[in-house]
């Protein structure tokens, strides 16, 4: 290994040289930062500036670079040096833009800048150039589980992008629910009439695509491995099994319709004339284009039909679905048109509480009104079956009356239940034993359970908005109604998105790089076996199930499954886990190299450990808006709050910091943590820090943890300033100078 040689480059542009004494910063870099080469440049991110750095790398053998300029989130392309380790001192967004330009602030602002230069020099000396994961698989095949609209689309899209696809379908035929529909909700202008489902064409294209291999009557009996190197045992119903390999998996296992027999108050099961939407599709298919739909009880033509929306949905009653399935309002409109288009004199009434027509459903709704379909805002209280037909009792929500309506046929809009397999996070208790009926979809051989974790209401997802398709099992992507309730048009879009994700995953995996959200990251965690106490905290806390145990009960890292959040590093009580360029030391040394003024100086120092995903960008944006915050703070970005090791807290307090602020993403049910559980485990760890504070005889206010959002641009500076006030009130840390 070559001798480390540090070069520090100070930018004088963007007003830095007007506000700061750059010569003093250069002095700090060379004397305290031990930089062999220190240069200043009026415009460092320009071609000339970058060229200056590159020529030093070539000529002077500089292999550790400190850029003292703007935030690490700015000018990333200019300062991307592949062969050397790089650290950034944030003088622009971190110092001059958040400090008011005033003579009185001159001294504290300069101190802030000097500390950031010291920190960057300390950090870069601890960093190693990441080499990428060498345990890579090279398989680029994509396995699609499920042969419905989502699965067919995902298979076709992946194949069109040039990837070989293995499509596993449990039943004997492709097409899923779509093939059971008479017509579908329109997806084309003018969105006025039901249209052909188009599923036959999809099936045909899949069956004739040379890039797609279809396995019917089959399921995944065992799934093991990681992105780029999955191994799947595909079993047929007859019991024959053969093993295939894939680089990524798309789970498009779809939905099961809600069991309407759980709705006795709506008369389901008590009369053949009370049916759900799926059964009406069957009646409509039987009637075809020529005949009229007949009621099942006596085969008489239906003259009056009532659609009951939100049947067992959007309700907190036990046994009901709490969520909206999203497709059923449009489906009811479509089905009412089956009747109206055939015979306009049929009375069609849709009883709804809130009509929700996603996509271009508003045009479809308008078309239905033109066709004379009646929409009544009413909450159905009961459906009483008669000899033929039924009477629907409802509260009219506009006229505020209780009334009823007679119908030949009643259609209940029941919801979708995700086929997400076994809930691996379900804690079995006496009152709530595990769902015995749940069948695993993937049969993963992971220690964390046989299926992907579920987010809400049994759907397999990680975040509806910020990172759809992602599951917490790297390389496995969910799409379609298994992810959230949706209709066919949405499922097609969803499947396309998941196919793209799967392609990214296999391509990254082959190169030994991380997947979302640190896509392309070459670093990966490693651990020092001699120090490990086999406490298993890393394996338990890893949000992605990337850590197994080897036969000697040591952690076994699956680098390809790892998302590089560092939650394992934060969890480790003996600090043996590290990344090449991010470790207990890269942050620990930054903490130690901040100059802590003497107690008499009355200049407190506040350490901020800010999540680089939301909190740090929010701080940058506060700077762009020229909001100001206290000069006492020193901010260190961390990959995730989950990577914060408590040693940093105790070290900081021991070395004289007066307060520590931890800024992470929102946790809990509506989390925004990019690593799902990172922020949560950090909060959990910090709730136990009070013991440490007590041992040190320090006030509990000295450590504060906050959930922030990327939009908290105004709130964050206020939060910091309030905390600075708190610290001034409780006084200086008594450990200063020890």
């Amino acid at each position, binding site marked *: 290994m070559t001798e480390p040689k540090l070069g520090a480059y100070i930018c004088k542009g963007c007003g830095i040289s007007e506000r700061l004494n750059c010569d003093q910063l250069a002095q700090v870099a060379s004397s305290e930062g031990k930089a062999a080469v220190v240069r200043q440049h009026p415009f460092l991110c320009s071609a000339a500036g970058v060229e200056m750095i590159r020529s030093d790398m070539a000529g002077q053998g500089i292999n550790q670079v400190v850029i003292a300029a703007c935030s690490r989130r700015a000018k990333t392309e200019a300062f991307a040096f592949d062969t050397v380790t790089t650290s950034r001192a944030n003088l622009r967004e971190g110092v001059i833009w958040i400090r008011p330009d005033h003579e009185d602030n001159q001294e504290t602002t300069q101190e802030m800048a000097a500390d950031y230069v010291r920190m960057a020099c300390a950090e870069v000396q601890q960093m190693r150039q990441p080499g990428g994961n060498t345990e890579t698989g090279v398989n680029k095949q994509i396995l699609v589980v499920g042969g419905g609209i989502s699965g067919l689309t995902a298979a076709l899209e992946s194949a069109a992008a040039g990837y070989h696809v293995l499509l596993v379908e449990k039943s004997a035929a492709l097409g899923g629910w779509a093939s059971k529909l008479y017509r579908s909700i329109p997806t084309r202008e003018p969105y006025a009439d039901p249209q052909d489902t188009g599923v036959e064409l999809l099936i045909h294209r899949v069956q004739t695509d040379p890039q797609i291999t279809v396995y019917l009557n089959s399921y995944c009996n065992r799934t093991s491995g990681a992105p780029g190197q999955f191994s799947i045992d595909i079993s047929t119903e007859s019991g024959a099994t053969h093993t295939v390999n894939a680089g990524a998996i798309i789970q498009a296992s779809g939905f099961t319709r809600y069991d309407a027999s759980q709705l006795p108050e709506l008369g389901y099961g008590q009369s053949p004339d009370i049916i759900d939407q799926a059964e009406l599709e069957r009646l409509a298919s039987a009637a075809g284009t020529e005949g009229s739909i007949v009621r099942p009880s006596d085969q008489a033509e239906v003259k009056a039909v009532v659609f009951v929306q939100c049947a067992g949905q959007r309700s907190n009653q036990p046994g009901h679905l709490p969520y909206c399935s999203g497709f059923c309002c449009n489906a009811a409109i479509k089905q009412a048109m089956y009747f109206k288009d055939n015979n306009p004199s049929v*009375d069609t009434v849709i009883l709804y509480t809130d*009509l929700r027509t996603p996509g271009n459903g508003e045009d479809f*709704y*308008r078309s239905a*009104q*033109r066709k*004379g379909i*009646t*929409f*009544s*805002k009413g909450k159905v209280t009961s459906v009483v079956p008669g000899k033929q037909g039924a009477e629907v009792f409802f509260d*009219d929500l*506009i*006229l505020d009356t209780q*009334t009823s309506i007679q119908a030949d046929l009643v259609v209940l809009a029941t919801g979708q239940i995700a086929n997400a397999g076994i809930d691996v996070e379900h804690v079995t208790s006496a009152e709530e034993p595990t769902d015995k009926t749940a069948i695993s979809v993937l049969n993963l051989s992971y220690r964390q359970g046989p299926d992907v974790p579920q987010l809400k209401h049994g759907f397999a997802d990680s975040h509806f908005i910020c990172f759809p398709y992602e599951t917490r099992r790297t390389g496995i992507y969910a799409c379609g109604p298994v992810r959230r309730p949706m209709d066919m048009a949405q499922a097609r879009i969803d499947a396309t998105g998941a196919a793209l994700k799967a392609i990214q995953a296999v391509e990254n995996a082959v190169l030994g790089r991380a997947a979302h959200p640190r896509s392309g990251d070459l670093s990966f965690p490693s651990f020092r076996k001699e120090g490990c106490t086999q406490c298993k905290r890393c394996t338990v806390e890893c949000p992605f199930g990337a850590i197994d145990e080897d036969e000697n009960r040591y952690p076994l890292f699956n680098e390809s499954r790892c998302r590089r959040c560092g939650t394992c590093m934060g969890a480790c009580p003996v600090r043996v886990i590290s990344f090449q360029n991010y470790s207990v030391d890269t942050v620990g040394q930054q903490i130690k190299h901040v100059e802590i003024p003497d107690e008499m100086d009355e200049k407190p120092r506040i350490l901020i450990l800010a999540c680089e995903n939301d909190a740090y960008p929010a701080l940058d944006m506060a700077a762009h808006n020229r909001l100001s915050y206290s000069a006492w703070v020193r901010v260190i970005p961390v990959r995730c709050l989950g990577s914060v090791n408590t040693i940093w807290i105790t070290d900081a307090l021991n070395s004289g910091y007066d307060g520590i602020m931890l800024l992470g993403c929102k946790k809990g049910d509506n989390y925004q943590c990019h690593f799902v559980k990172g922020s949560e485990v950090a909060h959990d760890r910090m709730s136990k820090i009070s013991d440490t504070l007590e041992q040190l005889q320090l006030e509990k206010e000295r450590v504060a943890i906050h959930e922030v959002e990327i939009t908290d641009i105004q709130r964050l500076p206020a939060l910091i300033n309030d905390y600075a006030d708190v610290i001034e009130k409780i006084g200086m840390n008594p450990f200063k100078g020890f």
Partner: protein
Amino acid sequence: MEKSASKQPPPTTTAEKYRNNFLREVEDNVEEGEWVKMCIQCGVCSGSCPLGSAWEHPPQELFMMIRAGQREQVLRSDSMWMCTSCYNCIVRCPRQLPITHIMHGLANYAHRLGIAPAQNPTRRFAKIFWDNIAHSGRVNELLLSIKLYFMNGFGEGIRMAYHMAGMGFAMFKTGRLDPFGLFMHKGIDNAKELQTMLTKAREIEDRRRGLGLGVAVKAD
């Protein structure tokens, strides 16, 4: 003046033809009635109406009642007679329903059927105004005012006239009021032709309504 007796029962043939489907009856007979089915029950019209609190059934509710087949309650209601044609609801309706026109259409239809509330002041004034202008083709303002004052009886008419006497005198002084106009009102040049046109128009309208209603409705 009140020739169409409100006690007279509504034509049963109408109800028979439409079975219980009052919505279809409205579509066929009420001006802009075909829009009623397009209402999405958002309630913006009711919220926008400056007189909303004075209506027993705001527009959104009327539309719902029509769909619910509440024929009597709608046509005998005085709600649509409250409309002052401010057009707030039309401007704001997300479905572009001509709500103001539908309100007048409903009022007109109820009037034609003879089941509109007899004592409704809007209805009575509208009739006074129509008789006045249809007679000569130009409004006799003095006669209109007097008929309006005496609409609710002789005693109140005198009180009202006394109350407005000052203004009447002032208008007289500035040449805005001609007391002889009461008897020597100058209508349009050939009022006879206007009468002929109106009779013809009524014939056409009755014929059209007859097609829709199945019975010729005697309009006052």
